[in-house]
């Protein structure tokens, strides 16, 4: 089962503060969505709504065609992994896995324990005694093994070291290949995780700024590399996102479409036109007002 997600005019208000405002999108089932946004953009609020952790104040959400809030059919098919403190959790690692297995209809216990082993988590140790990174790895392992048709991971890497994060990304892709589901990954590690995304959603100040497939997004800009004077001449008048220079070689990232004639001219000047990084685009898109 793969679940589509549709939001229509979705808003969430806490008293006078509007955390989300008039958000509309459609997420097709079976893809990995990267959810980006600066601190306070509304990412966790949006994910909380999808996971039925809170209720929207306006608009509507449909998951698999049904509203999720207090809907047992939907809720048991949605998994939400987030940064949580296990400082007082006396349950052991294996016990936490067993608890998830008890309530999740698609849970794969063997796979969960395989991940526990791969992440080098001590199965018989109380969770409160694990480091922050190990607790995050446990949450991620349970989240993946839940095999929920809609799996939401909100900064699941918090505290994980680089090799563990790499292992997690690899496992995520492998398991997605074996058991496709709709996956939403919220992250601040844009450059590290961008290759995972099929589509990108950017929130800014509670509003939907962008929702497009990954290739379209990175096609919104380009990197121009070559001799410094030629690069400077070529990018004149363009919106520059980033600039780096090593000796006489310069690389400038620009925002906006580069027409085919301009690309041809660039090649004649021995300039290399490459893709822009999602991180550079994200920084540009969300810092226009600064």
């Amino acid at each position, binding site marked *: 089962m793969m679940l*589509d997600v549709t939001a229509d005019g979705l808003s969430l208000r806490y008293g006078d503060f509007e955390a989300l405002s008039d958000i509309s999108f459609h997420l097709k089932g079976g893809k990995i969505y990267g959810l980006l946004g600066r601190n306070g953009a509304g990412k966790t609020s949006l994910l*909380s709504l999808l996971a039925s952790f809170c209720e929207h104040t306006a608009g509507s959400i449909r998951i698999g065609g049904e509203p999720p809030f207090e809907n047992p059919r939907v809720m048991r098919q949605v998994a939400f992994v987030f940064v949580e403190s296990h400082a007082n959790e006396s349950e052991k690692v294996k016990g936490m896995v067993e608890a998830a297995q008890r309530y999740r209809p698609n849970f794969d216990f063997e796979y969960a324990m395989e991940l526990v082993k791969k992440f080098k988590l001590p199965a018989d140790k109380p969770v409160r005694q694990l480091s922050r990174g190990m607790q995050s790895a446990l949450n991620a392992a349970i989240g993946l093994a839940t095999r929920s048709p809609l799996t939401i991971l909100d900064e699941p890497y918090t505290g994980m070291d680089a090799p563990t994060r790499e292992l997690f990304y690899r496992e995520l892709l492998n398991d997605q290949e074996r058991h496709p589901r709709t996956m939403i990954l919220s992250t601040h590690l844009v450059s590290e995780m961008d290759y995972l995304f099929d589509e990108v959603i950017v929130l800014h100040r509670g509003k939907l700024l962008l929702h497009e497939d990954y290739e379209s997004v990175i096609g919104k800009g380009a990197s121009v590399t070559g001799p410094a004077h030629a690069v400077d001449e070529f990018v004149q008048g363009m919106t520059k996102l980033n600039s780096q220079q090593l000796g006489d070689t310069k690389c400038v990232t620009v925002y906006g479409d580069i027409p085919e004639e301009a690309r041809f001219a660039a090649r004649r000047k021995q300039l290399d036109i490459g893709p822009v990084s999602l991180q550079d685009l994200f920084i540009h898109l969300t810092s226009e007002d600064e």
Partner: protein
Amino acid sequence: MEAKTYPKGKSDVPKVAGDLLVLQSTWSFMFVAIMLAVYLVFHYVVPSVGFLKLNNNLLTNSLENDFLDFVFRPSKVYMLIVGITSASGFLAFYVKHGITRKACFVGSAAASVAHAAALAVLAGIPTAVQHLAFPSSVPAEPEGYLDFGGNWGLALLSFAMNVLIYYSAGWLIGIGFYRFVPSVGMLFIPLALLLIVASDVLWEFELQNPLTGWLSFDRPEFTPLVSAAGTLVLFGAALAIIRACTKRAAIKIK
């Protein structure tokens, strides 16, 4: 077409109720074991040591009676604490695992009733052993809190119903602080106290609870049946408030 057919699933209520009952009964088993050890020491060991003397009248009086009477008041405090700590923790745990607030509430309510009965049985077993094996060490018709003229069924029923009210009072306080800001959560403490006092009034003549001594009015006498029915009404009222507070409650995640 967006609409999917979700697989049919069984209600989560029995699973939630069963799991909570097992978990809380395990805690209660440990609680009763500890209280039994304390009771055995003070009821049988201390009196046999000549130079030791208890100076606390309340403790002395309760030690003169059987174990059920001794463990009654600590059980109420224990259930209050279990109610406070369980309320918010279980709600967040279950919603995180895809269980609705409704299933969590109904399962928790069912488990609380069964748990109160389980605690009464757990406390009743050593008491029965005490009366059967060591009849000379306890009065045949205890005159403590649970004075029902030797009617043990009624004593266990009143035990269970009283600890149930204390559990629901704790549940109310826990939910009040989880759902609202602390200043509003504080209001749930007098609400819980009101529930406890009302229960004490209902059982006063049977239990002779000191709490009702705070109230200076002519207390009517209730038959155990009326007390039991009144307790159920109080429990129902507590559940109604808890459900109203949790029906659409946001789950805290950070």
